[in-house]
């Protein structure tokens, strides 16, 4: 039994299969809960896998040898977001002005409030630089964090946690604030919570998902272009 485990645990196949199994279990729980946002598939899958890796004393790099095949699909799936975007293109173009204003206000609010709150609570410099770009999709966020003096892999964790927080709270929070239209909910989800927020938006409707995908792309671009210049100014003010 132990021998079989030693053999299998060194194979990419085992952790690839377990990643899919954990996700399918999380998805079943999500559906059983009637799609309730607190039963978030990413959060449950990650919790299951971390528990399993710790129990079996498996290092993360060995896990990733198998899981990288799933990770790779993130690229083509991001490209595929063009299809729902195309479906909503007329509506998106008709709202170009309001979308631009919401982008600037939302993007600066998300990044600067994260930095300011953590700075006032005494977080360390590398943690602060890794937190600031957390609303942006992982590869952009990692690049920005490195330019600001943060840690790329820590940023990836903050990005994922932000995505989960947004996916859990967005619809309830926005409804309470009187915001229920698909465009506003979708755009807020994609802007504040990137791909995980976009995944949540697609659970709500395809229109909501299209607006989330647009916000994710636009916020990535906007943050990459502005944050490296704006953040040092805020850091100067807080010190």
């Amino acid at each position, binding site marked *: 039994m132990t021998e079989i485990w030693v053999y299998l645990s060194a194979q990419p196949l085992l952790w690839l299969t377990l*990643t899919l199994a954990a996700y399918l279990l999380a998805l079943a729980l999500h559906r059983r809960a009637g799609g309730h946002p607190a039963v978030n598939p*990413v959060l449950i899958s*990650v919790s299951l896998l971390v528990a399993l890796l*710790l129990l079996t004393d498996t290092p993360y790099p060995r896990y*990733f040898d198998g*899981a*990288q095949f*799933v*990770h790779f*699909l*993130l*690229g*083509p799936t*991001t490209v*595929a*977001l*063009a299809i*729902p975007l*195309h479906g909503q*293109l007329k509506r998106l173009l008709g709202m170009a*002005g309001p979308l631009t*204003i*919401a*982008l600037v*206000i*939302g993007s600066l*609010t*998300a*990044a600067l*409030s*994260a930095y300011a*709150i*953590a700075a006032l*609570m005494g977080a360390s410099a590398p*943690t602060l630089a890794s*937190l600031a770009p*957390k*609303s942006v*999709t992982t*590869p952009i966020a990692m690049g920005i964090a490195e330019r600001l003096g943060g840690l790329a*892999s820590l940023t*990836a964790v*903050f990005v994922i*946690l*932000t995505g989960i927080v*947004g996916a859990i709270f967005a619809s309830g*929070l*926005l409804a309470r*604030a009187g915001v229920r239209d698909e465009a506003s909910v979708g*755009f807020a989800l994609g*802007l*504040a919570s990137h*791909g995980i927020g976009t*995944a949540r938006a*697609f659970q709500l409707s395809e229109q909501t*998902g299209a607006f989330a995908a647009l*916000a994710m*792309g636009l916020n*990535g*671009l906007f943050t990459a272009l502005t944050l490296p210049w704006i953040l040092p100014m805020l850091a100067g003010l807080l010190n």
Partner: protein
Amino acid sequence: MIQAIALLLAFQLGGEALRAALHLPVPGPVIGMTLLLFWLVSRGGPDDALRNTSGSLLQHLSLMFVPAGTGVMLHAGRLVDEAWPIFIALIASTVLGLLATGLTLHLLTRHRAGRPQ
């Protein structure tokens, strides 16, 4: 299905190439998404194979974040040491970002709601 996957990968590759050549600050797949959008506009829309394959992938977008998310275990020490500033900042800033974006767009577009498209 294979054709559709090859198309998505080709656009991702084009995005990566453009990013490397022009030193753009945006990742290759996001550029690839933009290129594919232009291509769809020029063609008048996706064919059924592309629409179905993309739909299946997007339906499981959550799954693609699981391997990177599991990397949380590498940073357990820092997350515990700085737990309060990190979690308060993450939750508060995400809530503020959602409200700022959603309310701004909602207020700016509210007057259109009753108007036919």
